[in-house]
């Protein structure tokens, strides 16, 4: 027994002495120039054309590189990436990128314009089903190709087709989902009655019909309600084209769709855009626009095949400053400096580690105990503590995002824009920021957060007196006449407390009663998508630094509108902006559109986001950036 005790205590002593001499993980990593980053969750994937999230961006940005790279200090500038230089035509509808000749993949193979073209084709391939394909819709014909708009591609783009697309487009190619279809229609097209067949065709549209239905139309063209202007022979020709396409096995239409990507030579990529796009260099910094290694991807599957294993550590080939070395699921991702990177000498770090730490409190504890160089986030209740104990580490920086409350304008109580304005005016944004969020957020006086060159709107103001007058004008002089409305919110802590603040402010300033319904995340999304709410807390993070990333949301056709609101005036202004000659004029028109939106108030802007996180003082070359998309190649670690 005594012998056991002595050996145990000897072991304990040995452990203690061993551990005392050991330096903290961060000291060691800093010396080795390995940056350790908290990254909130396991990435959904590491394929630039598959993922949709911010945490994936943090990793992919280290592994891949597009035409341009984020400037480490400035949001409005771009540094050269794979492209050495780039230029646009006068109205920014055509951009040319000149690739550097020494650009290589991490396996040493040369990176050419074909890798870019391949990447763009891949993400747009209708069968690939990329969730973020819409980011490429800026390219001419990209949307049409991705949505497999057969009529447009097969007939509209064919110069030899007897009727022009301008007339053809009146044909119901895309289908009208408002026309209901007999639910028993699954039994087969042929078994339907003639009226049901007509409905079926109108519901689905010519583009989405199968051979059986097309053949039926060929026999009796009156199944389709053709526009008057289309002559009978053209009608048959259209159907014939569609039929030929299907009988040929529905081949892919990339070559016929004339998507706006051209590669005149190995080192030049030319983009033809659907509308004026002065911010294209910013877009090329988004992973959806990154090149992917054609040779590797095709070695693991077809171009339009998702879920292949080409991104596993043993297979992946990338072109960024770092390359993937280890990927332990839900545990860590390790990268090291890529020896084939064109700007190898400029890269200061030897590697980056990403840890999927879902619990922000755990993450903060790990940072406090010297296990991380950087956290992904910082919960509001830990901001004060961090400010006090780790003043050199606390970062609070503006972020390209806005928090708002959607109004369901189809609800009687919220139909009147004066009511919505009154609701907005009785939100004390400053109080919410100071007492609840505590993260240095900015009161959202408009929807679009401050962006360089864009005249930020200064419309939404706390003004309870005016709010009460508006309610009176809307017929609710007595608050009791106003029906009880409900705020839908997620089960996240901040949104819940935010809703309680709104509830309290509206009771206090307007005297109206508001209830709160908290729903789990997917249930919440489901209800928002189905317009099954009165008011709902939400937010939006910009994909690129341009007002359209926030303003396009409220178009009638946008899948994220979810308010029931739309305005012809608003969409006309956005359209005008998309064809305006100068960037200045464009911004002016966009601001006018935003003014319309804020007058109508289908969304009540609350605050502009900031990122709150902890950054170790040994990290150098890290400056505030609106999109928080820091270029790792400029980052360094120095022992103090």
């Amino acid at each position, binding site marked *: 027994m005594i012998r056991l005790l002595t050996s145990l205590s000897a072991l304990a002593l040995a*452990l*203690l002495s*061993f*551990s*005392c001499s*050991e330096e903290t*993980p961060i000291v060691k990593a800093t010396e080795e120039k390995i940056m350790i980053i908290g990254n909130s969750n*396991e*990435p*959904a*994937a590491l*394929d630039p054309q*598959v993922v*949709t999230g911010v945490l994936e961006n943090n990793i992919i940005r280290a592994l891949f590189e597009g035409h341009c790279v984020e400037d480490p200090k400035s949001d409005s500038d771009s540094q050269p990436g794979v492209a050495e230089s780039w230029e646009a035509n006068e109205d920014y509808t055509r951009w040319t990128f000149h690739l550097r000749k020494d650009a290589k993949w991490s396996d040493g193979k040369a990176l050419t314009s074909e890798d870019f073209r391949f990447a763009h084709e891949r993400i747009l391939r*209708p*069968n*690939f*089903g*990329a*969730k973020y*394909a*819409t980011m490429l819709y800026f390219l001419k014909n990209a949307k049409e190709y*991705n*949505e*497999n708009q057969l009529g447009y591609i097969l007939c509209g783009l064919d110069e030899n087709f007897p009727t022009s697309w301008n007339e053809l487009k009146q044909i119901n190619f895309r289908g009208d989902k408002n026309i209901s279809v007999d639910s028993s229609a699954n039994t087969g097209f042929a078994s339907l009655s003639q009226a049901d067949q007509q409905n079926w065709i109108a519901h689905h549209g010519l583009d989405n019909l199968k051979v059986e239905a097309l053949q039926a139309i060929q026999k009796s063209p009156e199944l389709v309600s053709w526009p008057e202007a289309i002559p009978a022979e053209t009608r048959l020709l259209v159907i014939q084209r569609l039929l030929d396409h299907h009988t040929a096995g529905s081949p892919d239409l990339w070559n016929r769709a004339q998507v706006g990507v051209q590669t005149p030579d190995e080192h030049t990529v030319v983009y033809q855009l659907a509308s004026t796009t002065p911010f294209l260099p910013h877009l090329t910094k988004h992973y959806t626009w990154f090149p992917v290694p054609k040779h590797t991807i095709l070695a693991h599957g077809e171009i339009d095949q*998702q*879920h292949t294993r080409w991104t596993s550590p043993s297979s992946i080939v990338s072109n960024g400053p770092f390359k993937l070395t280890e990927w*332990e*699921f*839900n*545990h860590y991702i390790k990268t090291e400096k890529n020896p084939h990177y064109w700007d190898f000498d400029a890269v200061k770090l030897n590697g980056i580690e990403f*840890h999927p*730490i*879902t*619990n922000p*409190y*755990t993450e903060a*504890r*790990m940072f*406090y*105990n010297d*296990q991380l160089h950087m956290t992904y986030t910082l919960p509001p209740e830990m901001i004060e503590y961090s400010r006090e104990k780790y003043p050199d580490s606390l970062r609070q920086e503006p972020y390209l995002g806005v928090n708002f409350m959607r109004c369901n304008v189809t609800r009687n109580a919220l139909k009147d824009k004066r009511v919505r304005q009154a609701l907005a005016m009785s939100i004390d944004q400053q109080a919410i920021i100071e007492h609840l969020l505590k993260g240095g957020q900015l009161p959202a006086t408009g929807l679009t957060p401050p962006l360089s060159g864009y005249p930020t709107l200064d419309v939404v103001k706390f003004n309870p007196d005016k709010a009460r007058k508006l309610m009176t004008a809307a017929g609710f002089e007595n608050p009791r006449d106003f029906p009880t409305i409900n705020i839908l919110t997620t089960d996240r802590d901040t949104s819940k407390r935010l809703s309680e603040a709104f509830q309290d402010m509206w009771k206090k300033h307007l005297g109206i009663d508001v209830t709160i319904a908290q729903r*789990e*995340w*997917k*249930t919440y*999304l*489901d*209800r928002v*998508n189905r317009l099954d709410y009165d008011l709902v807390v939400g937010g939006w993070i910009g994909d690129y630094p341009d007002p359209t990333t926030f303003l396009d949301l409220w178009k009638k056709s946008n*899948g*994220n509108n*979810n308010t029931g609101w739309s305005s012809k005036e608003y969409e006309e202004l956005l359209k005008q902006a998309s064809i305006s000659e100068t960037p200045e004029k464009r911004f002016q028109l966009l601001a006018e559109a935003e003014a319309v939106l804020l007058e109508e108030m289908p969304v009540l802007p609350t605050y502009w986001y900031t990122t709150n996180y902890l950054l170790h003082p040994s990290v150098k070359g890290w400056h505030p950036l609106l999109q928080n998309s820091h270029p790792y190649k400029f980052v360094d670690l120095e022992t103090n």
Partner: protein
Amino acid sequence: MFKTILSRLGQGILVVFCLISITFFLVRMMPGDPLTDEKALPPHIIEKNKAYYHLDKPLPVQYLYYFKNLAQGDLGDSMSKDRPVVEIIGSSFPVSLILGISSMLIALAVGIPAGVIAALRKNSFIDYASMSIAMLGICIPAFVVGPLLAMYIASNVSFLKVAGWGGPFDWILPAITLGLTTAAYLARITRGGMLEVLNQDYIRTAKAKGLPTHRIITRHALRGGLIPAVAYVGPAFAALISGSFIVETIFQIPGLGQHFINGATSRDYNILQGVVFLYGVIIVIANLAADIALAMLNPRARESA
């Protein structure tokens, strides 16, 4: 005995089958689906992605697909992380197994002696003290104990980390957090079992025959007194090795428990079904093991079986 095991196994397979079937339909009844996203996806993209997971097909067809794949050892692809469920379980389960075994060892090492001592010194200070601590252990949840251990112990002991999963040192605090509740239950159950046995005639006989106390306890009392504890340990062990969302997120451990929660919240049907399936299998095996152990301890159970 062999027959009993076989029939138990048969029952187990039936239980697991029902479990998967119920889970299969329940997860699909939740609002939203794997493709409900904060950024709404265009309908044609949703269609393409649903088709990949067969979600575009009628429920009975999906159900058949699932069992067809299951028969081939394929649990499908995760719908939120781009990899097969089998691979996810393959990387997470060993971690949870290590954590589960170490916390079970802690629970056994603490719980059983505490229960035995409390029973022997019934109504003494030791009894009250250990049972009060056990009550606390049951009542204080892991999300309180975990951060406290991290903040006050790991921060001050240099070889312990507040979170992370590297070497065996990193197993200590999570195992304590996870094992504590089990230890507390075990202590109370052991105490109850021991008290019942200690009042039995054969113990009195042994005492009257003049056997030394330690022999009475080890030879006679423990054998019967541990029966309730053993019955508890089986399912408890199954629960421990299938992971714990709370302990895993507090200590940043790549274990299995988080997939139960994340699978449900992200509507990742395949991963949820996968982990529920695994949990079902573990429960069945653990219960079976407990039954066998009980039969060995208790001749009456052997006979009735």
